[in-house]
């Protein structure tokens, strides 16, 4: 299987503080990869680097064998890297349908047309409904996004990512701040997306049960460094991971330990 995403010595520092240090990541197409690590390990920063919100101080990012290190956020999104955010990030005063349609419009390369075309509109409408069904948002077409329940906003974000025709989905804690009752639904949506086989998913998640259940590969990030990656069952038994994830020990002692 080819790698859809690779990073080479990816590093970023804010001032003197190295947040990500020489991360070499290889992500296989069609897999679900979970990134775990304690708070402040640099998980979200890594996502920001991959999607282009911040630029690296060193190293390169290759997406489908193309060097995307210097590309801006919108250009990476057009290539097929899509992300969801830790805090839900949607257009609050547009309806669910309009939110999704904006994503479809972008993926259908309909960037700058300044006159409305009715044929395109109805086609987009149908397409949007299909994505809504996939993400279990039926019947919410004309609800304003800000009036959705929190879990539904998460689903809307996922629907928008699918509508963007992203190949690589970066999901930053899709269950953060969601009530326990709503989690199974989100889980189901992610499983559905995974089953499709068209998408590669990178997940940041704290809920270990969910991570173990979903992931093909587990990546552990600690103090901005890639501590371990591989089969979830093996990784979780790794002594270094256990100490790092349970916290308490200093980095030096882990390296030597």
């Amino acid at each position: 299987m080819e790698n859809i995403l690779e990073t080479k010595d990816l590093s970023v520092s804010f001032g003197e503080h190295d947040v990500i240090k020489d991360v070499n990541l290889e992500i296989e197409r069609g897999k679900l990869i979970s990134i775990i690590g304690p708070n402040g390990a640099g998980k979200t920063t890594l996502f920001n680097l991959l999607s282009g919100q911040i630029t690296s101080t060193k190293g390169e990012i290759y997406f489908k064998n193309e060097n995307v290190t210097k590309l801006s956020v919108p250009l990476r999104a057009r290539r097929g890297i899509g992300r969801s955010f830790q805090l839900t990030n949607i257009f609050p005063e547009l309806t669910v349908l309009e939110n999704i349609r904006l994503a479809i419009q972008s993926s259908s390369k309909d960037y700058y047309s300044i006159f409305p075309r009715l044929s395109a509109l109805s086609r987009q409408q149908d397409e949007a409904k299909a994505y809504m069904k996939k993400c279990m948002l039926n019947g919410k077409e004309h609800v304003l996004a800000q009036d959705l329940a929190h879990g539904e906003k998460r689903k809307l974000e996922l629907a928008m990512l699918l509508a963007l025709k992203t190949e690589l989905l970066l999901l930053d804690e899709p269950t953060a701040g969601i009530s326990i009752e709503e989690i199974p639904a989100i889980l189901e949506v992610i499983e559905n997306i995974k089953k499709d086989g068209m998408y590669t998913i990178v997940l940041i998640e704290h809920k270990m049960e969910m991570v173990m259940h979903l992931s093909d590969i587990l990546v552990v990030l600690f103090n901005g460094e890639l501590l371990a990656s591989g089969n979830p069952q093996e990784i979780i038994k790794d002594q270094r991971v256990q100490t790092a994830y349970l916290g308490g020990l200093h980095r030096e002692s882990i390296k030597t330990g």
Partner: protein
Amino acid sequence: MRGLFHKVPLYWGLAIMLFMLLFPFVNDSRSMLILLTQIFIFAIFAMSFDILLGYTGIVSFGHCMFFGIGAYSTAIIFNHLEATLLNFMIGLAIGIILSALVSYIIGSLSLRLKSHFYAMLTLAVSQLFLVLAEKWRGLTHGGDGFTFSVPDVFKDRTSFYYITLISVAVVFILLKLFTESSTGKVLKAISQNEYRAEALGYKSLHYKLIASVTAGVAASFSGALYAVSLRFINTNVFSIEVTLDALLMTMIGGLGTLAGAIAGAGIIEFLRHYLSELAMTYPIFERWTIILGFLYIVVLLVFPSGLAGFIKRINLKNKRKMKKKGELQRVA
């Protein structure tokens, strides 16, 4: 066309248009026609401002410069060439091209930064144009301004009334199509969440530039009509009050609704007309601008989303009431 107009009270628009078309047959008082003509011209100007502020969320403090560029281009052409329709078109075209250029340059310099840089830069450049108009006496006759003659169709108050009325309708339809287009939707998205729009693959700078140029062109058109309506021009068209008028009109009418901008223009111009007329009997109304100031404060406090938002709220309330009634009936 349902998809396009389902939100617009299309019948209302048609009814108002019909009324306005028939109006000169009912009431041909000269001052009334002049007042309505002014309203139409400022309605175009207010709509252009609304594209910036209401639809895209860009604050401009110098929108008057596009109005002024349009007005001066037409006036200077008529001052030097014969008063024919062709020359009007030439003046209009020069104004529009200049405005598009200026708005493009200002936009590309400042729109990639946070929005207040655009506000400051437009303010500065518009003041620059004011100084230019004051100092370039050979062309503009400075602060005194100059009069010029216009084609006969424009001289006749009734025909000019129809020209401006049709202009408002055409500009409204064009801008409405623009805001309903995919580009228009992205503008709305950027005003709500620019960060997200970028993550969806939209280069927000490009869209802001499109909005900025569109607004500049429309404002320039209204400026040209304004100059023709007065048959006189001076540096007042570049004054900050012109920008404030546009701001007031869109705020009162409701941001983000083109019809609101037209209504706002109507309200402000009517108020200005009648309040300054009242001043003849009650001297206190000589300070009618103060009353506009009060109106502004009241609008911000009571109807923060303007007339359009107020109507929307009432409609929503009625709908909810009807729904409740229906539910009660079902229960009974």
